[in-house]
């Protein structure tokens, strides 16, 4: 058996350098043994690339890049495709996770000065990869064809008006239409599918360069030969253990908080006639968006934004110091790094806030600081080096390079916790979770099936007089637990697979109320506060002095008081109506996410499995690394 295998491998080796390749790039590839977990983010980025390609491939089998169908096809994926919700949430959460990983990968490179010679080409190929990733994410974000998708694409394509002389023509050319339209959606889908393969190609170049120059390491100097250990098994197991930890956090979002990364407004289909009150890009674009807005002039803003990304490429030239190890041994550089990180967080916050005098000023200051830091580096890096040498460090540089244990100064670890806290802070501010909800009633919605079933009665008998729930069918009501008889009575002559359409045709409703009553299928996701929004809306009707029915919290709403809340005389009469409102909210919560139960169950299994697997990886990693003697000081 093994003889047979050896003969096959020998046959292959004569025609393809298989064994040599595995030896050179894996089992004998020398890797500095002191790499920390911060060196694992390249591997995680590779994993995310594969995950996005695989989940995207299966999504593309169901998605329809057509302006009239795109939004519906995403709902089809979420509701009808087997595990479609999983594919979509992996992909949407995956986009954010990809950027988290890439930004940490970049932060590590900056902190440890890994961009310096001889790794400039790695840094630059990484820079191009970042731009390609941004383009892919931006085009992918249009595909769900929600309000935020649409207006994001509208604004970003408009930036190209800054092109000299032919700006307007360029914008129309990019869109294939006078506004973002069907043609735009179709080409964005094509390019969104293409770019990841180009990224794969460039990743290969990135890796070839890496395996030529080898990994940097926290000491900033090349270790002695015996402190370089084979990549496999030491770093395969270390990287996989890191992946396990990462996946537990990632799956926590995918299975239990997937809407965290989806803007409320993106649950409303694209409407070219109306911009949402507050548009903002996804969190990973916020700092650059803030820089764009900080410059009062359109062209200037675009130039500043582009520069803010491209300026990273200049780092190998801007940093004049020859002291190794980046911020680890260089106090001034370290301070600049921290200011830069804080500045990024400030910019993200500013980018997520509506424009006001204060945010504009803060954005302008943060923008000046952003570019100022890059300009400072060449000015301070040489004096810093001279100062460090004079301070006595001086053990000549060569000796320093030979020993990690005699650093210029006690090294500081990578400020990982700070970055993680900051990233969470960005997410929370960027998502602006509280602002819109403060006026909503403090109410706890009982999302049990019983409540949802009661709510279904109210919705089908009251709300559906004017509203549709077009993504649900009578069959779904039966799945919720309504009896066959109830469902049969509701549907009458209609087939069981008929969507739940309002009893009033949309045109007639528009005539009566001036607007087409919105579809309720996604209402609990399409408004800030979700179920609490529904409850508050239904229980805020009252009669004003003139005897007209008004809504306290949402003045000007066209919907009349559907549950008769305003005509209830006292608390006792209001109580059953409040109960009905809670039930309606519970039903709409279920209607917006009927697969939530399935998702949670799957989540427990997946995270349980990952916990066990990661535990095993940890044990194995300890065993594997136990073979190495401690790293000797020189």
């Amino acid at each position, binding site marked *: 058996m093994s003889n047979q295998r050896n003969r096959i491998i020998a046959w292959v080796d004569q025609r393809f350098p298989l064994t040599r390749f595995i030896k050179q790039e894996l089992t004998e590839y020398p890797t500095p043994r002191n790499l920390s977990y911060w060196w694992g983010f390249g591997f995680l980025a590779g994993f995310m690339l594969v995950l996005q390609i*695989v989940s995207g491939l*299966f999504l593309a*089998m*169901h998605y329809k890049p057509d302006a009239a169908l795109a939004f519906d096809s995403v709902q*089809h994926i979420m*509701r*009808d*495709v*087997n*595990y*479609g919700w*999983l*594919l979509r949430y992996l992909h949407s959460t995956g986009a954010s996770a990809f950027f988290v990983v890439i930004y940490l990968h970049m932060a590590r490179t900056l902190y440890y000065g890994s961009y310096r010679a001889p790794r400039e080409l790695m840094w630059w190929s990484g820079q191009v990869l970042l731009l390609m990733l941004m383009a892919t994410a931006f085009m992918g974000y249009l595909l769900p064809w929600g309000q935020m998708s649409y207006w994001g694409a509208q604004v970003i394509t408009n930036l190209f008006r800054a092109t000299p002389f032919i700006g307007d023509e360029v914008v129309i050319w990019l869109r294939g239409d006078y506004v973002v339209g069907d043609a735009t959606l179709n080409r964005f889908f094509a390019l969104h599918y293409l770019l990841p393969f180009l990224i794969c190609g460039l990743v290969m170049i990135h890796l070839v360069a890496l395996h030529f120059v080898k990994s940097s390491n926290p000491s900033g100097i090349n270790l002695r030969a015996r402190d370089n250990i084979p990549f496999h098994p030491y770093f395969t197991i270390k990287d*996989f253990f890191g992946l396990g930890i990462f996946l537990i956090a990632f799956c926590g979002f995918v299975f239990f908080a997937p809407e965290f990364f989806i803007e409320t407004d993106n649950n409303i289909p694209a409407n070219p006639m109306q911009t949402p009150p507050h548009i903002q890009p996804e969190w990973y674009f916020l700092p650059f968006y803030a820089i764009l807005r900080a410059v009062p002039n359109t062209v200037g803003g675009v130039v500043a934004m582009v520069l803010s990304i491209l300026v990273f490429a200049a780092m190998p030239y801007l940093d004049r110091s020859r002291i190794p190890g980046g911020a680890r041994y260089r106090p001034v550089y370290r301070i600049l790094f921290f200011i830069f990180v804080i500045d990024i967080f400030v910019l993200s916050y500013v980018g997520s806030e509506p424009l006001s005098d204060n945010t504009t000023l803060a954005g302008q200051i943060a923008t000046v600081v952003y570019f100022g830091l890059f300009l400072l580096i060449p000015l301070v890096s040489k004096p810093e080096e001279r100062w460090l040498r004079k301070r006595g460090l001086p053990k000549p540089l060569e000796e320093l390079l030979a020993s990690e244990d005699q650093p210029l100064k006690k090294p500081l670890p990578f400020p990982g916790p700070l970055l993680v806290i900051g990233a969470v802070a960005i997410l929370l501010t960027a998502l602006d979770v509280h602002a819109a909800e403060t006026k909503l009633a403090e109410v706890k919605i009982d999302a049990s099936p019983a409540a949802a079933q009661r709510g279904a009665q109210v919705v089908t008998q009251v709300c559906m007089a004017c509203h549709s729930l077009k993504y649900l*069918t009578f*069959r779904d009501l039966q799945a919720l637990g309504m009896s066959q008889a109830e469902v049969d009575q509701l549907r009458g002559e209609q087939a*069981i*697979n008929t969507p739940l359409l309002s009893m009033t045709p949309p045109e007639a409703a528009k005539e009566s109320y001036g607007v087409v009553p919105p579809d309720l299928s996604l209402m609990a996701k399409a408004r800030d506060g979700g179920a609490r929004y529904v409850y508050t809306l239904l229980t805020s009707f009252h009669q004003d002095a003139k005897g007209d029915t008004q809504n306290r919290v949402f003045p000007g709403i066209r919907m009349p008081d559907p549950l008769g809340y305003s005509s209830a005389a006292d608390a006792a009469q209001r109580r059953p109506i409040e109960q009905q409102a809670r039930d309606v909210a519970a039903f709409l919560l279920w209607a917006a996410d009927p697969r939530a139960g399935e998702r949670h169950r799957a989540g427990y299994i997946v995270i349980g*499995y*990952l916990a*066990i*697997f990661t535990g*095993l*990886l940890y*044990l*194995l990693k300890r*065993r*594997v690394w*136990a*073979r*190495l*003697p401690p790293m000797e000081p020189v």
Partner: protein
Amino acid sequence: MSKDLPFDPERREWLGKLTTAVGAAGIAGACWPLIRSMNPTVDVVAKANTEVDLAAIPPGKVETVAWQGKPVFVLHRTPEEIAAMAASSGVKDPQPDAARVQKPEWLVVVGICTHLGCVPNRNENGWLCPCHGSVYDNSGRILRGPAPRNLEVPAYKFIAAGKIIIGKT
């Protein structure tokens, strides 16, 4: 390199194999949703049953209905046809007529030739496939031609008031 350390190769090998097995199981498990996602979606499966109103089909006539996207022949047989079919049992794929119908007046068969998948055309004695000339009788049984088997009888059942529902329910 490893002499003076608590390094136990046997234990490590055992742990390595276990971890690899658990990891492989995880990868296999992760493939499952991907494979499942390519199966017919919930809304397609829900449409896998077709109701047919039999009252609209006079004796001697056949109605072709779509079931799961496939043509199904529903033939209302006359007493003469019933008698003729009960008397024979086919040629290439012998089967009594009683085994192919639930009620003698109604023949329900999938209208796809068992040879290469064309839809046979109706004639007075049964069906003739236009592609390669397979001939079926009024029980959907193959008489002559290249088709190897009788026309398939789908799962169906009679529901209230002269209606059938085709498909598993």
